[in-house]
């Protein structure tokens, strides 16, 4: 399957006074796994909706497989599949009824259906539940059914809005197995995610904030672009540790990552010096060490940098 490239040019969407997506421009090669990452309200969903042709751009355009979504959506739709963030299938239809409804909508030839269904059931482990109403499935199974319906017509481009949001770890792994398989077959995947480990799997990632692209590169390049080093500190009182670190002159940034404080420091600042400073301030440090910067570090720095400029 070829021709699944996506070219986004100046894509913009305004809702009244609010500009949800601002002149978005990027290209995704056929067969690429492309991630949209950003906080709530960054414009991820709006972007995917415009690419899926369910929301008209205020300005700009996107070419999916060479066809304009603004001007010829009828030519775009058969080659894409879109999975909205909110479960979009019919809860009062069974698993099988939902699948055959979507197979009909995309006019999948009858002769090919049994083989495709068998494969999708094998992928998703939904086979034993074919006659169950979609509304009675667990969250993870619903997402797998959604993805199966999206794949029934073998789209060249998959648009997925937070496909693993709120899904149990097993189903999440299943979903990624399916995606990996699709990418291996040459399907282009554009997905939004709030999970950094998922962003790490992408070929390239666009960091979105307030409708703007802050950075766009491979995860490795994005991490390499982080200025300074990261020291991860575990302390008895993580919150206090962060507050103390923020007072120090060598610290560019200190943020809580769960129970750990990530301090972005100048290259020459060692973990030991931070430990001493914290102990002097009366914070008991359990552990302090240099770590590889994660996408989350990059992301926080970029977003914060944006706010500092504003």
């Amino acid at each position, binding site marked *: 399957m070829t021709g699944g490239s996506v070219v986004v040019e100046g894509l913009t969407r305004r809702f009244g006074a609010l500009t949800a997506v601002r002149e978005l421009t990027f290209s995704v090669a056929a067969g690429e796994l492309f991630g949209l990452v950003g906080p709530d309200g960054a414009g991820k969903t709006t972007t995917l909706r415009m690419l899926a042709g*369910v929301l008209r751009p205020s300005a700009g355009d996107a070419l999916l497989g060479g066809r304009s979504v603004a001007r010829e959506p009828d030519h775009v*739709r*058969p080659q894409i599949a879109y999975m909205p963030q*909110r479960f979009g299938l019919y809860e009062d239809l069974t698993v099988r009824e939902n699948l055959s*409804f979507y197979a009909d909508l995309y006019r999948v030839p009858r002769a090919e259906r049994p083989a495709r269904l068998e494969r999708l059931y094998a992928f998703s482990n939904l086979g034993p539940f074919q006659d169950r109403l979609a509304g009675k499935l667990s969250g993870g199974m619903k997402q797998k059914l959604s993805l199966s319906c999206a794949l029934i017509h073998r789209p060249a481009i998959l648009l997925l809005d937070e496909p693993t949001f709120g899904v149990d770890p097993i189903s999440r792994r299943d979903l990624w197995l399916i995606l990996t398989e699709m990418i291996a077959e040459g399907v282009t995947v554009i997905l939004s995610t709030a999970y950094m480990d998922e962003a790490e799997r992408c070929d390239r990632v666009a960091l979105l904030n307030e409708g703007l692209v802050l950075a766009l590169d491979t995860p490795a390049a994005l991490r390499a672009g982080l200025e300074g080093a990261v020291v991860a500190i575990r302390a008895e009182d993580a919150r206090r540790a962060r507050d103390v670190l923020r007072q120090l002159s060598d610290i560019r940034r200190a943020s809580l990552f769960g129970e750990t404080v990530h301090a972005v420091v100048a290259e020459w600042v060692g973990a030991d010096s931070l430990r001493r400073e914290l102990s002097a301030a009366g914070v008991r440090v359990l552990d302090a060490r240099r770590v590889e910067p994660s996408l989350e570090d990059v992301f926080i720095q970029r977003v914060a940098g944006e706010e500092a400029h504003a």
Partner: protein
Amino acid sequence: MSGMGISLTRLLAVSRKEWIQLRRDPRSMALAFVLPLLMLLLFGYAITWDVRELDLAVLDQDGTSASRSLVEAFEASGYFTVVERLEAYREADAAVGAGDAASVLVIPPGFAADLSARRGAAVQLLLDGADANSATIAFGFADAIVDGFSRRVVLEGRTVEPAIDARIRTLYNPTLESRNMIVPGLIGVIMMTIAAMLTALTIAREWERGTMEQLASTPATRVEIVLGKLLPYVAIGVLDVAVTAVAGVLVFGVPFRGSVVIFLGQTVLFLVGALGLGVFISAAAKTQLVATQVALIATLLPAMLLSGFLFEIRSMPPLLQGITYLVPARYYITATRGVMLKGVGPETLWVQAAFMVGFAALGLFAATRVFRKEIA
């Protein structure tokens, strides 16, 4: 594979999906199959303009055989039942005011004497004007009874050929049963309401449940979605009309003189229009609650009040008469009454058919136009 043009596969897929959903939704099933019959029975028994057995109070101050035979004439007519005998004139007002009697017949003293003296006797009839309709009818009956009574008194056995002998024959509804008028009209009112309500739910439900977003991203066009959604409801609507008409004939004894084919043809046209209107409301409202309420108000009231079902259109003020042309039930009710009671065919009903084709086209056009495959 091209996404252009109308695909029957997709249209039927939408119909099938809609039918499955309908089948599994008890609320819609009740709306589709139980409510029409329930409404027919309820309205069919409740609404009647026939005035029979009017409660009559009598104040006979004369107390003669002449006055008694006048009262007997009232009772013998079948239209009045004497429920109360009054003693004094002041009780008359109280009897009507309390609702004990709808009318009071007052026969003054000297009634018999006046009659035999050929002076021209007077009687008084007090009517409860609060129910203007019944009062008018009661007046008509009373007038006729008194007229007949006085002629008998004047002639006293002799016979005279009247100057003009009016022989009135009522066509199509010889017994003037109001039910015969009501049942065909009711079919129109019921179907207008049910059809619009049923489809009002369908698209609003897709928006509310979030299924529209994914549907909108597929190659299904809005024409396929709208027509596909309408198809099962047209089938249900035709079935409903058939069942209601049969019930009207069997339960209420309404005649069916015309052609079943013409009847069903008019029904399909009307349903497509009414269902299209429902889709239009549904697509514009986007929530099921708003959609059903708007559909109910937009269909039930005009269909009841402005279609000629309850009130004669010709006696409405000109402005309201003008508005009735916009009420599709007007044409359908004319058609159902025409087919059922008069047995008229296309030579008369083509006007109604033309208006309903227009209504159906408008309904479909509005439905597909307002329904945009776009969220937000």
